[in-house]
């Protein structure tokens, strides 16, 4: 009887302490962003700000190019996602539905490029961008993000696609649909959960990416949030903690919103990748 009461108690205790541990940096980020400058380095620290202020947010939005970075990040992550999901869906479709020589080899090769550390690819990519005359543009960054997000997306979508029976498409063909029509009417609705979770993965990957952005782009007008905010607020002599935390909060908001709405699709994506990818 006693152990029956104790078990859930311990489980709850462990779970909540883990949750607190993991969410502490997030909470601290929010708290810090709301404190006035004077309260920032007080010892002992105040857990709840004595005075809540939004001046850091205001300063970021009005006095810095934060909004430019934000717009760049939105364009970058959205374009990358559209590219990757579009190419990945078509690629996965042909890898699953058409029989051609070297099909498996091709799929393995694609996965292999995913295994290469991205640092190895940065310099060649940078040189290619320079030769193409598109270095230091947002477009070059979109291409670069596509190169590292596509292989994983392809494998994820492939495992989703393999779960759709051939007969469904055959039935649509016999019923009078063209191949593209069958894809649109039958395959696509079945694939939608896979497409959504792949899009989420890609968006998050691109939104949070730092290294490529740092190397490939160096002017303020095309920098995304990750590198833009860092170079703006962190210098050798000083770190603008309040502004940094306010920027971090605003950077996280889109992801949190997206997560909240599409969470169930994301977990199904983890499942598909885990079983087959």
């Amino acid at each position, binding site marked *: 009887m006693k152990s029956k009461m104790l078990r859930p108690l311990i489980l709850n205790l462990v779970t909540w302490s883990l949750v607190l541990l993991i969410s502490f940096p997030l909470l601290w980020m929010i708290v810090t962003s709301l404190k006035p400058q004077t309260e920032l380095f007080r010892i002992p620290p105040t857990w709840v700000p004595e005075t809540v202020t939004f001046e850091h947010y205001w300063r970021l939005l009005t006095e810095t190019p934060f909004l430019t970075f934000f717009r760049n990040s939105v364009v970058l992550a959205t374009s990358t996602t559209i590219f990757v999901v579009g190419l990945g869906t078509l690629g996965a479709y042909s890898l699953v539905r058409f029989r051609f020589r070297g099909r498996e080899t091709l799929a393995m090769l694609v996965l292999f490029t995913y295994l290469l550390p991205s640092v190895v690819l940065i310099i060649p990519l940078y040189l290619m961008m320079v030769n193409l005359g598109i270095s230091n543009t947002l477009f070059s960054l979109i291409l670069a993000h596509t190169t590292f997000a596509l292989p994983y997306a392809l494998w994820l979508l492939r495992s989703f696609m393999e779960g759709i*029976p051939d007969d469904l498409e055959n039935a649509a063909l016999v*019923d*009078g649909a063209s191949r593209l029509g069958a894809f649109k009417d039958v395959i696509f609705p079945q694939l939608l959960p896979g497409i959504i979770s792949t899009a989420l993965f890609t968006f998050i990957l691109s939104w949070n990416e730092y290294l490529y952005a740092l190397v490939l782009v160096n002017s303020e007008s095309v920098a995304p949030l990750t590198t833009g905010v860092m170079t703006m607020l962190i210098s050798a002599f000083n770190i603008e903690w309040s502004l940094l935390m306010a920027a971090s909060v605003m950077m996280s908001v889109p992801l949190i919103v997206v997560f909240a709405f599409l969470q169930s699709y994301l977990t199904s994506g983890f499942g598909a990748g885990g079983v087959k990818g």
Partner: protein
Amino acid sequence: MANVSFTNVRKSFGDFTALESLDLEIHDGEFVALLGPSGCGKSTTLRMLAGLEFPTSGDISIGGRVVNDLAPGKRDIAMVFQSYALYPHMTVGENIAYPLKKRGLKKPERDEAVRRAAELLQLEPLLNRKPKQLSGGQQQRVALGRALVREPRVFLLDEPLSNLDAKLRSYMRAELIELHRRLGKTMVYVTHDQLEAMTMADRIVVMHGGRVQQFDTPDAVYNRPANRFVAGFIGTPPMNQIEGTVQGATFVVNSHRQPIKREAFAASLVDGPAVMGVRPEFVGIHDSGDGLPATVRLAENTGHETIVTLELPDGARIMSRVEAGRKLSVGQPVILRFDPAGIHLFEATENGARLNLDIPVAATLSQSA
């Protein structure tokens, strides 16, 4: 007219030949079953007719027009898949309406056609459900509805009953026969279940190893099998095949001499090794007298008959079908006598041709009437 013909059709996948030189002539309005064990090429045949596979060589035509290069949707066919292949995200009504939508029919016309199909198959109360919410039998009927709603020239059915339980299957068999009678359309039906083929089809194509073994009526396939494969495939239990030797007017097996009428067999029947085929119902079991000695190994009473497994002294097994309630004990020695009316002789080769003269053997493969 919607006759279907295969002319010299060959299909190979890489090095593997799935079908060698297939010739079939299916008449307008006929119900033809493609019957054979798995891997015999029957599904490939159907998928080529549907346009989902392409023949390596040869021509396929529907209603006199070669359709080799025609997309599946342009062949005026409908197909029912073994898995039913219902579109999971569409309701029953949308599933049935889909082929009509693809042909550009307006919504009121579609609704009317769906209503008629639903009425025919008693699906009206289910039209707004999703396929997942239906039982196997209901899903089956939706698949049929989707096939017949747009009145195609040819129906293709790929093992449509194999996922149903036994009781529902026999009910759906009757429904399909009734449907075929009412629509009068050409139907091509793939199955590995000989009961389905025998009860439903006007004619049966028995296939094995990528070749047509026999194309004939159920009656002919049962009573006049073209070769040893057909004899051994059709019937439960199938025809007994006993190896022996032809000597003049007798067939000798284990020193038992079975009289045969030489004039009833083709001239190619010469003295020497041959195989005698006898259906279990023509094997009589006697206590004494003239005949082939054997031992009872198993007697299975099914209620209306008894299936007896017998063993010859050389170890070969023979099945017999006798009346129910016949008292036979395991190990009991008996004498077998074969009814001369039920004796078939085959060439002694692995898939030897039948040598009886009642139908010309050479004609069975290409018979079309």
